[in-house]
């Protein structure tokens, strides 16, 4: 942890966020990483809403840029879950970015963050359409790109590019 704090010496706002998070959620398995000048934190699935509320209200990350779904079928290590969802947060007007990562296993249900960030509405629908991850408490969880009756989730790694016949 102290080495992580060292790396953020040139980024005082991010260092401040790091301190606040480590202080408010000790022992909650927050795994930080700082690569190519971007700070990312992995949080456990059960505490996602709590941590995002803290980031929005107390740390100032008031806008959401994007919600990204990943299928780690080919690159995951032993014991890791199959899917991951990334939340790309943005602080305005003081410009800083933060990426929050949550790991989701197959057949697990994720929490929808639409009550916090309304901008996530369609992005979560897209993740459901492309990967098959369900979101609890989403106002309108339906397919968005494919037909409603489409069978299969196209962006999964085991779905062929030309589609199933």
């Amino acid at each position, binding site marked *: 942890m102290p080495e992580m704090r060292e790396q953020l010496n040139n980024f005082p706002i991010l260092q401040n966020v790091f301190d606040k998070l480590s202080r408010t959620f000790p022992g909650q398995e927050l795994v930080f990483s700082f690569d190519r000048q971007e700070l990312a934190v992995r949080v456990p699935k059960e505490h996602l809403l709590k941590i995002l509320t803290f980031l929005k209200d107390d740390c100032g990350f008031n806008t959401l840029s994007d919600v990204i779904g990943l299928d780690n079928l080919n690159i995951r290590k032993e014991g890791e879950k199959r899917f991951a969802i990334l939340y790309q947060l943005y602080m305005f007007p003081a410009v800083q970015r933060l990426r929050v990562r949550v790991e989701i296993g197959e057949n697990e249900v994720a929490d929808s963050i639409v009550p916090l960030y309304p901008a996530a509405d369609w992005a979560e629908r897209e993740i459901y359409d492309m990967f098959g991850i369900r979101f609890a408490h989403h106002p309108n969880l339906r397919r968005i*790109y*494919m*037909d409603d009756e489409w069978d299969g989730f*196209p962006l999964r790694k085991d*779905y*062929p*590019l*030309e*589609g*199933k016949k």
Partner: protein
Amino acid sequence: MTEKNAKPGFFFGSLDKLITWAQKNSLWPFGSGLACCAIEMIATAASHYDISRFGMELFRASPRQADLFIIAGTVTNKMAPVVRRLWEQMPDPKWVVAMGNCAVSGGPFPTYAVLQGVDKILPVDVYIAGCPPTPQGLLEGLMLLQKKIAKEHPTRMIYARDARTTE
């Protein structure tokens, strides 16, 4: 059999020429602009390349009033039934031009969501390749269509009712 291959004769032949001349110089396109090729289609209709020289400046919004269906852009599996229905709503005689690589054969997208060529659901008269084809390319394709229309025999419907002229 002999009716289908019979030569039209002077009166019907001249009437053919008159009718096809009128048809090919006043085609009203139904611009189904789906993707990037639609922008080149609109650029062709704009002042620099002026499709109005060919009589085609009246892009109709409703298929019931159009006779040339220019499919410009990628046809996806979700959009395919819509395109088929629009074509069926157009009254005869009608012609179809597949503009751009995506309409011709799926283009650069060999994926689960794209129909690999619009001729899988519609009969196409002229194929124009390009990604997107330049306005000069589109005009060349339309002139080819005009040559094709000039060779048709619409009066066959009068003297040989059972033989169709356009399919």
